[in-house]
């Protein structure tokens, strides 16, 4: 058995960002990863660092997301300095394209509500009509009537981010243990022990960041994380010379030149197959937005499973029964990486979640149903 200051369960973007942050706080941290059978939402991620669609009706989520986008440049610079890996972060602002007046009106109403809910924290956005939009983006299709725009949005490479977080963590002395799925655990306040095929680990703090695996792990630590899988599919084109100056909600050009098209939201359980009708819808919508995309070859496509709470918001908790046990769950491992590494990890190191995270507790699901 090895003893550490902190155990992080889950080596994806959420766990790796937190582990990197905990190491930065000086904690002797061990990062337990499952293996290649894991669902690995991190490797299917679309790669947006996205603010404008997050937190309608939940302004605490809007602020957390925006805070994370604000932390991202520091995170990217830190990772580049430590590892030499460029996470391809670009935050030029982003647009949500609207096909038809109904979509435009609906979007305008949502954005107005988001701004009202933001209060004096501020929420800059514009609803931009097609004539002006055509000067911002090349070759928009005739059915694009406009877009919402905010200055906060951007994108990055999820794979480069994951690699950089792992490398920064291990080069700073963190212990990364693969093929270490938690087989059994014992919990007492600030005293945790987990058994894995790769050994037994003990620490006064444990962070559950195992994605969909958290649903089963959490009860062992007096926590509740009712997350479910939600499938998303992505298509990727051949590389093209840089043409898109900013990402949209569902179309972005990577630093290497490929254009990624997504995303779907499918309630199909743990089914990770791809579905041609959904792929066709994704391609069709992309071609309506940018007709020239249709001339590009699709070279890759995949599906992945989001980690989704019942209300779609992240879950952050510390166990009341076993203080020192934390859980972190979200479907935005890229967007929230800045917050996880630089805001959440220090809270966990200090032993208490900041009150700004109180609304993210899973206790929100405990409200008794009306009789």
């Amino acid at each position, binding site marked *: 058995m090895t003893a550490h200051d902190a155990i992080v369960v889950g080596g994806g973007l959420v766990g790796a960002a937190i582990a990197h942050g905990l190491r930065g706080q000086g904690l002797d941290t061990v990062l337990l990863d499952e293996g290649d059978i894991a669902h690995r939402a991190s490797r299917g991620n679309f790669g947006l660092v996205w603010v404008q669609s997050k937190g309608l009706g939940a302004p605490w989520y809007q602020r957390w997301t925006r805070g994370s986008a604000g932390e991202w440049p520091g995170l990217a610079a830190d990772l580049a300095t430590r590892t030499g890996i460029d996470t391809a972060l670009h935050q030029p602002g982003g647009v949500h394209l609207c096909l038809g007046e109904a979509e435009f009106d609906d979007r305008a109403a949502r954005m107005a509500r988001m701004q009202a809910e933001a209060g004096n924290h501020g929420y800059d956005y514009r609803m931009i009509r097609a004539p002006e939009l055509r000067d911002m983006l090349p070759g928009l299709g005739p059915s694009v009537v406009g877009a919402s725009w905010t200055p906060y949005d951007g994108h990055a490479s999820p794979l480069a981010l994951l690699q950089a977080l792992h490398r920064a963590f291990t080069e700073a002395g963190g212990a990364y243990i693969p093929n270490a799925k938690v087989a059994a655990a014992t919990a007492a306040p600030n005293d945790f022990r987990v058994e894995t095929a790769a050994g037994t680990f003990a620490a006064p703090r444990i962070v559950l960041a195992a994605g969909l695996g958290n649903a089963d792990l959490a009860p062992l630590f007096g926590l509740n994380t009712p997350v479910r899988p939600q499938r998303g599919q992505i298509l990727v084109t051949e590389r*093209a010379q840089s043409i898109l100056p900013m990402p949209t909600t569902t179309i972005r050009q990577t630093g290497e*030149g490929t254009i990624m098209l997504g995303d779907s939201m499918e309630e199909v359980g743990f089914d990770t197959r791809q579905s041609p009708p959904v792929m066709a819808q994704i391609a069709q919508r992309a071609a309506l937005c940018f007709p020239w995309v249709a001339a*590009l070859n699709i070279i890759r496509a995949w599906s992945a499973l989001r980690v989704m709470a019942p209300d779609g918001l992240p879950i952050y908790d510390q166990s009341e029964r076993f203080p020192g046990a934390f859980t972190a769950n979200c479907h935005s491992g890229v967007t929230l990486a800045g917050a996880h590494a630089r805001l959440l990890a220090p809270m966990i190191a200090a032993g208490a979640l900041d009150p700004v995270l109180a609304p993210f507790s899973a206790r929100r699901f405990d409200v008794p149903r009306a009789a």
Partner: protein
Amino acid sequence: MFRARPDARPATVEVLVEGVPVMVPQGASAAAAVLLAGLPAIRETPVTGSPRLPLCMMGVCFDCLAEIDGVPNRQACMVPVAPGMRIARQHGARVARP
């Protein structure tokens, strides 16, 4: 699974490799035409600009990408030649044209 290699065939089909006429046998691939033409590279990679020639000749490695009859990024080893076919080098990433 395997077939006997056909006898050497005469070069009867004229294609243009980088604008230069090259005679190749019927049924040969555009990648074969590029090799016969003796080009030093058929493409440069999009990210680092590294020069490449056809390698696997069976549709797997994508090192033979070329612009064929105006269509960029085609796997030249998978395209049979046709009279007058225009085969040009693929220089880095293709252009997406709005």
